[in-house]
């Protein structure tokens, strides 16, 4: 599996650190932290995930990836995909 880093180009997955679901939203002080910390949608299909290019440009990316086929649909800088 290779990820298309917007800065470095197509790079081997070994260079990246996986962080997981990019669509979890940190709740406010009185929010449901149990759901935020522990529960996952765990979708079979396309998901948006955070990946960190630790051994490259050190940018945080939001990658759209299919968990069933491992196909990579899209990658963008996390800072540009602000919620």
């Amino acid at each position, binding site marked *: *599996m290779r990820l298309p880093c917007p800065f470095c180009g197509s790079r081997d*997955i070994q260079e990246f650190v996986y962080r997981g679901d990019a669509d979890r939203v940190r709740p406010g002080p009185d929010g449901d932290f149990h759901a935020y*910390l*522990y529960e996952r949608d*765990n979708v079979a299909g396309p998901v948006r995930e955070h990946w960190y290019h630790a051994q490259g440009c050190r940018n945080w990316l939001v990658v759209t990836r299919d968990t*069933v086929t491992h196909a990579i649909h899209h990658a963008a800088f996390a800072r540009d995909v602000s919620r």
Partner: protein
Amino acid sequence: MTRYSIFSLLRNAIGGQRGWPPAWRDAEPRAAYDVVIVGGGGHGLATAHYLAKVHGITNVAVLEKGWIGGGNVGRNTTIIRSNYLLDGNIPFYEWSMKLWEGLEQELNYNAMVSQRGVLNLYHSDAQRDAYARRGNAMRMHGVDAELIDREGVGRLAPFLNFDNARFPIQGGLLQPRGGTARHDAVAWGYARSASNRGVDIVQNCEVTGFVRSPGGRVTGVETTRGTIGAGKVGIAVAGNSSRVASLAGLRLPIESHVLQAFVSEALKPLLPGVITFGAGHFYVSQSDKGGLVFGGDIDGYASYAQRGNLPVLEDVCEGGMALMPMIGRARLLRSWGGIMDMSMDGSPIIDRSPVDALYLNAGWCYGGFKATPASGWCFAHLLATDQMHPVATAYRLDRFRSGHMIDEKGQGAQANLH
């Protein structure tokens, strides 16, 4: 049912091996059952067996979307052990070990349970301390554990690389009663025993939804082979737990990840038992056919693909070469991937779900195979009595909310690190 014995073997040897009936019935689904178990893997079949045998509940169906033995029960590395550290885990896995020890007589089926020992190597003083602690925790629960030194490891496995300057082998923690079992035979043996007691094993029957009463209670399942009524429904589909539970509107503390395993070409008898490398993640045993069966870490990203990527293959093989360089010329025969329910503390869930009459057996991470007998035993107990079994009381679904995590590795809520 033909009882397997020396006499039935002789009879069929004379008769050209044509007298063997199928080991279990490939049943057609009926309209309703007392208990429906979703998932015909090791855990689901074991649950059906113990429901019938221990609790006398035989009006049971096991629904399998593919074929028996085609899921994770056929994709593991067949290791059985109970060398855990935490109170929530040790009694459960030791109960599993005890059930393994009597399994073949109980099922009248050769599951090739072989207690050849599990040896975890340590490579530093700190790791020795951690293993001493683990061994002590095990012995306090009545589990066998021996801390052995470098010379002791040398006698067991002289072929290891004792000259590794960076990660010298200083000794190991040995569980002599650990070992391996034939994974397919475990599935078939449980299927045969459950089927003979009246359980319907229904293959090619994928659950696509749950039938709910106006009050929200689950009263049946919708499947690709029609609607089936059920008094209670148990989910035992590790790898796909989130997908099945989502059909009932549940969101679980689980991520699905892929774990790869590898087998080499067949070699002459070489390894005395299961050996794990403490300075990396590599574990290896030798099957009775001679292949070295080994694996390491999960790939580390969410996946339902049942296949992994090359960096993990490289990492696992590097671990193997660091530990036993002699395997460098053995050729890799096969590799495959299985999908793991990675829970948020690395421990499983056997509990009622928030939905009435729906029960959950999930979150086995990459340790589900060794747990098969106790998982079935405790899930059957839960389904039959509505009470959690005494050795599985810690495996609650709400422990993440209440703070009673069972985090053997102390990694926190990061599923890919467990």
